[in-house]
Each structure stands twice: as structure tokens, then as C-alpha cells.
């Protein structure tokens, strides 16, 4: 046993030159970067061909680039009012998402733990959650506008109410699925409630919690764009609506690309944190 283990832990000999690193880099470029670039070029080409005829309703990519070049190279201008660069627009949206999502994380994990731990809470709350979670995000907007009398907290509330359901549901499933063995270990060690929560429950449920957090962040980003279209002000959602009213289709297309990229980055960030935190947890 110990022999094989020693053999495993022998470190790799240090590379004599940079060649292996260059080789690795080349492999990554060929396998990971090249295929999506090729597909992008192909799709862009098709789009260019389809939209190049004089009567086309949408601009081809070359024209989008020409129309929006000022916006691309100058993302942080501020001419007052809503006339701000794309960077500011996105940051404004991200700020709302950050507030709403953070509240959803705190409330969602707490409620999820409650529902996962207590059979009575499960019986009482679960049916309510199951009904409320099917309500579309934007349907909450009028009622929250009526309640808060102000657009910013309303948008934050919409994010909150959108992101919270998958967090609650996944957390409660994770807590309910903590193996009996871990509970027994905790009982033999006589861990108190707080120690059990920190040492056993959170790590054991972490893979579930993080899948809820990941779904939640995706949904918040989906909801903010729609909510901002309605509430106005600075933000990528209203930017799109504004561009539509001004018939600046190229601006809309650029904004859509940015929205997609930001959503992708948000998803990856939560996934990365989840991977770091739950390392080793999912496997027995």
C-alpha cells in the first residue's frame, strides 16, 4: 500500500526548457479556442451574406461594427442622464443584480436549511414555494412597484424573487440528502447545532447549494434585462429598449452580445467558486 503511494507522490522531473509549455499552449489553442472561432466566423459569414442585400431588415455584422464603433472603443463616456457608455450601463445592471442576488443567497440558503431540516417547515412552506416559483419574474414587477413606490428597489426585488427559488429548493434537497452516516458521526462527537451547521451541513450540502446558486445567477441576469426595459434609467435593459425606440438596430445587437458575454462570465464565476469550495465533497 505504502509503496504504490510513494510511487504516486514522486514529482515530475522539472522541464528542461520551455518547449513543453509551448506545446501545452498550442494544444489548448487548437482544441479549445480554434473550434468556436471557426464556428463564429462561419455564422458571421452566413449573417453577412443574408443581410447584405439592399432590402434586408437587419444590418450585416460589418455594418454593426461600423455603426457601433464609437460605443465599442469608448465604453466609459458619460454625457449625463441616460447617455452613458456601455460599461456604465452594464455596471448599473450588475449592481442591481448584486443586491438582489446577494439577498436571495442569504434568504434562500436560510430558508432552504429550514425546509431541509424541519419536516413541519417542509409541509407548510414547500407547497407555497412550488406555486410561487412558477410565477414569471416580470409578473412581480407591477406589485413590487406598487409596494416600493420606486423603480430601483422594485428591480432589485424582481431579481431577488427570481433567484431565490432554485436556491431554496436545491439547498433543502441538499440538506435533506445529508447521509445518515455523517449525522451519526456528528452525534457520536456531540457536535452542537452551530458546529453541525458549519462542519457537516454546509459542506455536505455544498454541491446542491452551488447548483442552486448557479441557476439563480443565470435567472437574475435574465430577469434584470427584462425588468430594466420597463423601469427605465441607466442599465443595459433600458439601453436596448431605448435603442429600439430610436431604431438603432446595430446598438441592440451589440448590447445583446454584451449581455450574453456578461451572463456567461457570471455563470462561470459561480461555477468556479463552487468548484473551489466543493472540491472533494461530491465524491465519496
Amino acid at each position, binding site marked *: *500500500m*505504502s509503496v504504490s*503511494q*510513494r510511487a504516486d507522490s514522486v514529482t515530475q522531473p522539472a522541464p528542461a526548457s520551455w518547449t513543453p509549455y509551448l506545446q501545452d499552449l498550442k494544444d489548448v489553442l487548437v482544441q479549445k479556442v480554434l473550434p468556436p472561432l471557426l464556428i463564429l466566423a462561419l455564422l458571421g459569414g452566413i449573417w453577412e451574406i443574408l443581410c447584405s442585400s439592399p432590402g434586408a431588415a437587419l444590418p450585416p455584422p460589418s455594418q454593426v461594427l461600423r455603426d457601433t464603433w464609437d460605443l465599442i472603443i469608448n465604453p466609459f463616456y458619460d454625457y449625463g442622464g441616460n447617455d452613458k457608455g456601455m460599461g456604465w450601463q452594464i455596471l448599473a445592471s450588475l449592481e442591481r443584480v448584486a443586491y438582489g442576488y446577494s439577498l436571495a443567497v442569504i434568504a434562500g440558503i436560510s430558508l432552504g436549511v429550514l425546509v431541509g431540516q424541519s419536516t413541519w417547515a417542509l409541509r407548510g412552506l414547500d407547497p407555497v414555494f412550488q406555486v410561487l416559483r412558477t410565477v414569471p419574474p416580470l409578473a412581480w414587477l407591477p406589485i413590487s412597484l406598487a409596494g416600493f413606490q420606486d423603480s430601483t428597489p422594485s428591480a432589485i426585488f424582481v431579481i431577488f424573487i427570481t433567484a431565490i427559488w432554485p436556491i431554496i429548493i436545491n439547498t433543502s434537497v441538499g440538506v435533506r440528502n445529508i447521509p445518515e*452516516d*455523517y449525522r*451519526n*458521526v456528528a*452525534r*457520536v*462527537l*456531540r*457536535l452542537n447545532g452551530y*458546529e453541525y451547521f458549519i*462542519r*457537516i451541513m454546509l*459542506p*455536505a450540502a*455544498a454541491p446542491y447549494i452551488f447548483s442552486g446558486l448557479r441557476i439563480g445567477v443565470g435567472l437574475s441576469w435574465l430577469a434584470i434585462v427584462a425588468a430594466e426595459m420597463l423601469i427605465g434609467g441607466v442599465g443595459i435593459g433600458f439601453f436596448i429598449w431605448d435603442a429600439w425606440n430610436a431604431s438603432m438596430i446595430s446598438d441592440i445587437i451589440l448590447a445583446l452580445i454584451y449581455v450574453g458575454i456578461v451572463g456567461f462570465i457570471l455563470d462561470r464565476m459561480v461555477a468556479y467558486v463552487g468548484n473551489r469550495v*466543493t*472540491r*472533494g*465533497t461530491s*465524491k*465519496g
Partner: protein
Amino acid sequence: MTARYLSIEQVDMTFSRAGVDSQVLKNINLNVERGEYIAIIGHSGCGKSTLLNIVAGLINATSGAVILDGKEVNDPGPDRSVVFQNHSLLPWLTVYENVALAVNKTFARTRSKAERHAWILKNLEMVGMSAALHKRPDEISGGMKQRVGIARALAMEPKVLLLDEPFGALDALTRAHLQEEVMRIQEELHNTIIMITHDVDEAVLLSDRIVMLTNGPSAKVGEILDIDLPRPRNRITLADDPRYNHYRQEVLRFLYEKQRKVEDLAERRRKEQSAAALEKERA
């Protein structure tokens, strides 16, 4: 009544599910001396693990009591540490941290940080795991996980160590190896141990007394066999020892002649069906 170290007194256990009561254990009495190694053997489903869980305090007996060192057992605690069959290490903690969780909790007030650290290392060294302190459970083999489980249980300095089929999930070679380790550690520490097993050789090789449970429902202590073999024991020389073979046969006779496992329903049904088919062919 004599003052015993651990006594299990008239323990009954009845589980009720959906209004149906099923008695698992009936009137179990057992006295264990300090430093004694007891093996509990019986067919699967006879309630061995239930009995161990009652001693551990993880479940409460319907009636009767377990008294350890003058105190009645009502809930689980570090004075009765358990080595679970499937190791039950926490997968997000390293080998060191798994043992540290137990040690730091058990000796939080009585030992300094440095003492606790040294104690963790000593216990892991005792089971031969010093080389893998910072590995996670999924990076080590099944046998190694069980070693860590044993180290964690030993490190709590329990009054009685409870082993729930500790080697059941391991391959034969690893199992033999770990049995040797447990014997070696037992020579050194003289712990009081109760081990659940269904392996006759393991029971005879390791224990001072074998408690044989009858088949459930309402299992009770069928026979108790004293194993009077000198320690340290060696499985190879014992293989030719007539006493060893005698003890083995005693246990086997109990398990396979007196307490033959009732044919399970599925098998019986299959036999009936094939008999019916045969008759049909004849007709």
C-alpha cells in the same frame, strides 16, 4: 449484582412501522469486562447492528438498559466511539482533519493545541497513515479509509470501541492485514471492544468471547463461546491448532445447524413454481 464495566441488561428492541410492531431483540443480557474483546456474530438481519447502535446510544432500546462504567447510556458520546462499516469519513476534510475534528471536539478543554496535534499524529501513525495526512478520503483506498476511521475512533480514547463490521467491505487480503493491525493495537492499548461480524474466522481470531445471536425476529443471545487462545495470535500457526478449529466448528455449528437461515421467500416461491411446472409437464 456484580459491578461490571459494561453491562447490557434485559434489552428489548421493537420497531413500529405503520402500526405494525416487529420485535428485533428480546431480552439481551451481556456483561463485558474492561479490556475484553467481544465479537457478536449472527446471520444478517438478526439485529446485530441494532444492538451495537443501542450500545452506541444512536438508538434507544424499547426497554432494558446499557450501563457503562456505572453510568446509563442514553445518547451517543465520545466514550463509545464507533467505526462504521463504510468508514464515514467526511469527504471534504483531509485524513488529518477528519481525526482532528474528533480530537479537537473531545479534548477541547482538557488538552492544549500542541498536545492535541501530537495526539492526532500519534493515532494516525499507529494505523500506519502518517504518509497520507493531507490526502482526502477519495484519494486513498478503502482499506486506508478504514484505517483512518479506526484512528479517529481510537483518538477519542473511548471507554468502549464499537466496530460495526469494520472490514466487511474490504477484499480478503486487505481485511487480513487490518485484522493483524487491530490485534497489534489491541496488544498495546487493551481497549474494550465490541465488534459486529459475520466472518467466523475473524471472530475466532480476534476476540476473547464470541456472542452468538439467534435468528430474528426477537433475536436473543444463543450461545457465548470463550476463546481461550494465547495472544499474540498468528493466523498461520492457528490454522493447525486443534483448539482454533474446534472454536471455529462451534460457531459454524451454531450458525449453520442450530440457526439455519430460513429460506427467503423469493427462493421458496421459485421452488414452488418449478415444482408446479414439473407437475404440469407430467400431466
